[in-house]
């Protein structure tokens, strides 16, 4: 049980510190690196929660896909060196106030609420069960998701392609 706790704190630290870096770092590229750390940490937490398939999906889709896309966008759109960032003073202060209010509330609820938790949750591998579920109980959402992805693919290409105007 002790190793579990140590591993949890390791990944939780990576996730929270990385997430803290996203709003606070002055350089948007470091924000992206903070997001990387947060995503890796969350992937580790999935393993601790016996969601092995989800952890690998997190690595493949988020870090291999979304994060690379975001870094591409960062490099295509902003001057990485710019120190003076989008953060305005007033916005930062009110953001910090909101952060402390929401954070205290959520942590308070998470710790003190009487959750009806199972005492000894069992861990087993989930890939086979998820595969069966996706082709059985959750077949309709699975198919809808594939249609959504196709629409996204076409939509993203149409929106982002360069238009050549003749004028």
């Amino acid at each position: 049980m002790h190793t579990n706790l140590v591993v949890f704190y390791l990944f939780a630290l990576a996730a929270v510190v990385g997430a803290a870096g996203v709003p606070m770092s002055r350089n948007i590229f470091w924000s992206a690196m903070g997001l990387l750390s947060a995503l890796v940490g969350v992937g580790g937490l999935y393993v601790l929660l016996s969601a092995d398939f989800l952890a690998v999906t997190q690595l493949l889709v988020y870090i291999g896909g979304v994060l690379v896309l975001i870094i591409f966008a960062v490099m295509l759109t902003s001057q990485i060196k710019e120190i003076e960032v989008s953060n305005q003073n007033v916005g930062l202060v009110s953001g910090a106030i909101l952060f402390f209010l929401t954070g205290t509330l959520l942590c308070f609820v998470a710790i003190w609420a009487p959750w009806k938790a199972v005492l000894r949750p069992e861990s087993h591998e989930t890939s086979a069960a998820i595969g069966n579920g996706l082709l059985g109980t959750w077949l309709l959402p699975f198919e809808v998701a594939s249609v959504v992805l196709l629409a996204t693919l076409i939509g993203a290409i149409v929106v982002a392609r360069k238009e050549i105007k003749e004028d």
Partner: protein
Amino acid sequence: MMEHLSLSHFLVVGGLLFCFGLMTVLTRRNAVAMLMGIELILNGANVNLVAFNHYAAGGLSGQIFALFVIVLAAAEAAVGLAIILAIYQMIRNIDTANIASLRQ
């Protein structure tokens, strides 16, 4: 209670991720950074889903739900970044304060 790994540990991490994401969306004016904040919020929600699935509900429904959230987050990121790139091609700026041409 706190010496053992419990539901509360994961809920606290999920809540903190959500708060940082909220703060990013509210304070940043760079559109790409706002998208990063949205990803953080979705990740915080996902941690909660999987934690409740593991500790309270059992079965697989929470994990499948998180899987669909990941799929939709990827779709949202792709379309969002495409829109941002299109705006950048148009006005050479992605500061959300400057994207106001629809206002006129």
